[in-house]
C-alpha cells in the first residue's frame, strides 16, 4: 500500500486558499443581500458585490498557483543554504502546543504563573534543541527547575502586591496621594523586585549547581515580572490574577 504523500507547502497553501475562496463565495451567497438602512431607491449596490469579486480573484489566483506548483515550477521558502538554518518540525509543534496551552490557561492560572510557565518551558525546549544535553536540562531536573521558577514568581508577585497595598494604604491613611500614582507605584515595585531578585540570586546559587539553569529561572521569572510592572502597574491593564488571587 502506498504511503500517503504530504504535499509540500507550495501546493498545499494555494489549494487550501482556493477552497477557502470557494467556501467564501458559497457563504456570501447564502446570506441575504443587505442594503443601507433608509435606502428606498435601492442605490446601494449591496453587500455581496465586493466579497464575491474579491473571492473570485482569490480563487483564480490560487488555482493558477496550485497548478503551477503541481507542475513543480515553484521556488519556495527564503532560507536557502544558510549555515545552521534547518527545519525543526517537532520543536515547532511543541511551541505551538505550549502557546495554545498558554492561551487556554491564561485566565485560570493567571498571568504570573502562565507566563513563567511559557517562558521557562519554551526556553528549556530551545536549549535542549540546541545542545542536545538531556541530562542537565531535561526530564526531572527540568521539572524541578520549573517548580522553583513558579514558586519564585509567586513570591515576587506577593512582594509586589504587598508594595502596592502599602502604597494605597499610605494614600488612604496618610494622604500621600503620590503613593497611588501608577508611575510611582511602578517605580517602587520595580526597585523592590530588583532588590529581591539580587538576593534571590544568592539563594539560587546555593540551591542549583548548573549556572545555565539558574539563568533560565532568573530570566523567565524576571521577564515575567518586568512585563507585569509595565502592563499592570504602568498601563493599568487588568491582567488576570488566576490562582494567585491576592
Amino acid at each position: 500500500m502506498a504511503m500517503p504523500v504530504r504535499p509540500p507547502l507550495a501546493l498545499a497553501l494555494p489549494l487550501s486558499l482556493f477552497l477557502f475562496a470557494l467556501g467564501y463565495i458559497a457563504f456570501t451567497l447564502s446570506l441575504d443581500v443587505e442594503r443601507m438602512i433608509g435606502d428606498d431607491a435601492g442605490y446601494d449596490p449591496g453587500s455581496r458585490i465586493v466579497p464575491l469579486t474579491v473571492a473570485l480573484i482569490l480563487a483564480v489566483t490560487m488555482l493558477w498557483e496550485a497548478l503551477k506548483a503541481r507542475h513543480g515550477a515553484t521556488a519556495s521558502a527564503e532560507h536557502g543554504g544558510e549555515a545552521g538554518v534547518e527545519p525543526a518540525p517537532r520543536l515547532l509543534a511543541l511551541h505551538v502546543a505550549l502557546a495554545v496551552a498558554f492561551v487556554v490557561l491564561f485566565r485560570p492560572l493567571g498571568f504570573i504563573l502562565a507566563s513563567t510557565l511559557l517562558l521557562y518551558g519554551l526556553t528549556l525546549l530551545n536549549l535542549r534543541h540546541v545542545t542536545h544535553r538531556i541530562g542537565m536540562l531535561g526530564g526531572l531536573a527540568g521539572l524541578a527547575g520549573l517548580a522553583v521558577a513558579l514558586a519564585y514568581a509567586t513570591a515576587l508577585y506577593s512582594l509586589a502586591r504587598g508594595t502596592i497595598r502599602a502604597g494605597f494604604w499610605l494614600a488612604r491613611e496618610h494622604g500621600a496621594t503620590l503613593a497611588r500614582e501608577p508611575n510611582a507605584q511602578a517605580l517602587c515595585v520595580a526597585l523592590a523586585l530588583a532588590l529581591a531578585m539580587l538576593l534571590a540570586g544568592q539563594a539560587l546559587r546555593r540551591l542549583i549547581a548548573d549556572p545555565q539553569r539558574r539563568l533560565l529561572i532568573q530570566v523567565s521569572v524576571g521577564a515575567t515580572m518586568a512585563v507585569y510592572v509595565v502592563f499592570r502597574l504602568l498601563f493599568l491593564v487588568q491582567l488576570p490574577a488566576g490562582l494567585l488571587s491576592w
Partner: protein
Amino acid sequence: MHDLAAGLQLILSIETLLWIAAGSILGIVLGALPGLSATMGVALMLPVSFHLPTATGVAMLLAVYAGAVAGASIPAILLGTPGNPNAIATIADGLKMAKQGRAGLALGSAALASLIGGLFSLIVLMSFAPLLARATLLFGPVEKFGLALLGLTLIASISGGQVVRGMAMAAFGILLALLGSDPYTNAPRMPFPEIFARTPLHNGIELIPALIGLFGVSQALVDLERLKAPRPAVPALRLRNLFPSAARLKRMWRVLLESSGIGTLVGMLPGAGASIAVFLAYDRARALTHTPDSGLESTGSGSVEGVMAPESANNAVTGGAMVPVLTLGIPGDAATAVVLGALMIQGVVPGNELFMHNMPLVYAIFIGMAFALVAMFAFQLIGVRLFPHILRVPLSLLIPLVLLLSLVGTFAVDGQAVTKATYNMGVALAMGLIGYAIKKAGYPLVPLVLGLILGAMLEDNYRLAVKLARGDQWVFFQSPILLGMLALIALILFLPRLKRAGILRGARP
C-alpha cells in the same frame, strides 16, 4: 503658532522622552540582532503604544522603527550579515571598510547617514503632508476607493516580482477584513453562526491581534529554524575617527541628497519599502562616485559613500511612508501599516480632518519623530560598543519572549474586556500560524496586511460612492483623480512586461 505650541505641550514631557529613548534602544537592539525584523518590533510595541497618549505612542513606535532600520547596519558592517533587509546594500562597502580596519568610520558614517536621511524625510513630511491633506478634500468615496485599490495593486505587484501571489494575499486579507458584520446594517457576516455568535469573534477578525500575530508570532516561529545557527565572532573594534570630515561631507552632498530623496519617494509609494530604496540609492551612488573628478571614493572599494547612501535611504523611507499614512490612511510599508493600526485604535482619522482640526497632534508627531531620530543617532553609537554583548543574547530566550509579548500584548489592548481579550490571543496565535505557513511557502506577507487594513475602506467606499451616484456604477470613470490612479495602476502592472519586451529603455533591471 498656537497649534505648534499645543503640539509641543503634548509631546514635551520627561515621560515621552523616556519612552522615545526606550523605543530607540529597543529598535536598535532588535535591528542589530539578525533574524528579528523591524516590523516585528513595531508590532510588539503596539500594545504599549495603545496605553500611551497618542503622540507619545506614535513617536515611540517610529523610534523603534527608525532604530531597527539603523541598527541593522551594525552587523552588516561588522559581520557581513544584515540585521534585517534594510541593511542589505550596506554590506558591500561596510564590510570592506571593516576589513580595512576602518570599522569605526563605517559605523559612525552609517549612524550619521541614518540621521540625515531621517531628518530629510521628516522635513519633506512636514512640508508636503499639510498640502496633500488639504487636497484630500477632493477625495470622496470614489477617490478613496481608488486609493485603496491603488495601494493594494501596488503592493501586490512590488512584492518580490510575484504579482499573482501578491494579488492572492491581498485578496485573502480583504476577505478576512470583511468578515464580521455588514458595515451599514450591522447584519452578521460570519460563517458558522452557531459557533461564533456567542463569542466575541462575531465581530470578525480584529486588526491588532492579526497584525501582532502576522508579524510577531510568525517571525518567532520561523526563527526556530535559526536556533542552531552558529553565533558569529565579532572582530575587536577600534572606535576612533567615527565621522567623515566636514569637508568630505560637503563633497558628498549630492550622494546624500539623492539617496535621501530616493528613500523618501519610495517610502511615499504605498507598499514599497526600504529593501527597494537601498538598492536604488546604492546604484545612484555608484553612478555618482564612479564619475572621474567627482572627488568621491568609488563605491565597492570600501567607501564611505557606499555606506552612507543606502543608510540614508533606508531611514528616509520612514518619513516618506508616513505621508500616505497621515494624509490618506494608507500605509507606505509594513511597519507604517502597524503605525496606522496604532492611529486607528486611538481613534485618529487620517486625512483632511486630522490636519484641519487636530494640528497639535500632527505637530506633536512631527516633533516626536525628530526626537526619535536624535535618540536613534545617540544610542546607535552606544549600541556599537555594546554590540558584542547584544549578540550574546541567545535566540533560545528571545523566541519565547517574543511569543509571550505577542500574546500578552494582544491581551493588553483590550484591557477590561477579558473574554474578548482572550479570544484575541487565540486570533493572534492563529494568524501567526497562517503567517508562518505563508512565509514558509514563499508568499509575501505585506499584501495580506494591507488587505486587512484596506479591506473595509474598499467596500465601504465602493458602496457609498455608488449610493451617492444614485446607483450608477460608472461613476468611477467620471472622476479625473480616479482615472489618473487607474492609469497609474495599469502602468505599474504592465511596466515590467513592457520593459522586458524591450519597449522601454530604462534603468538596468
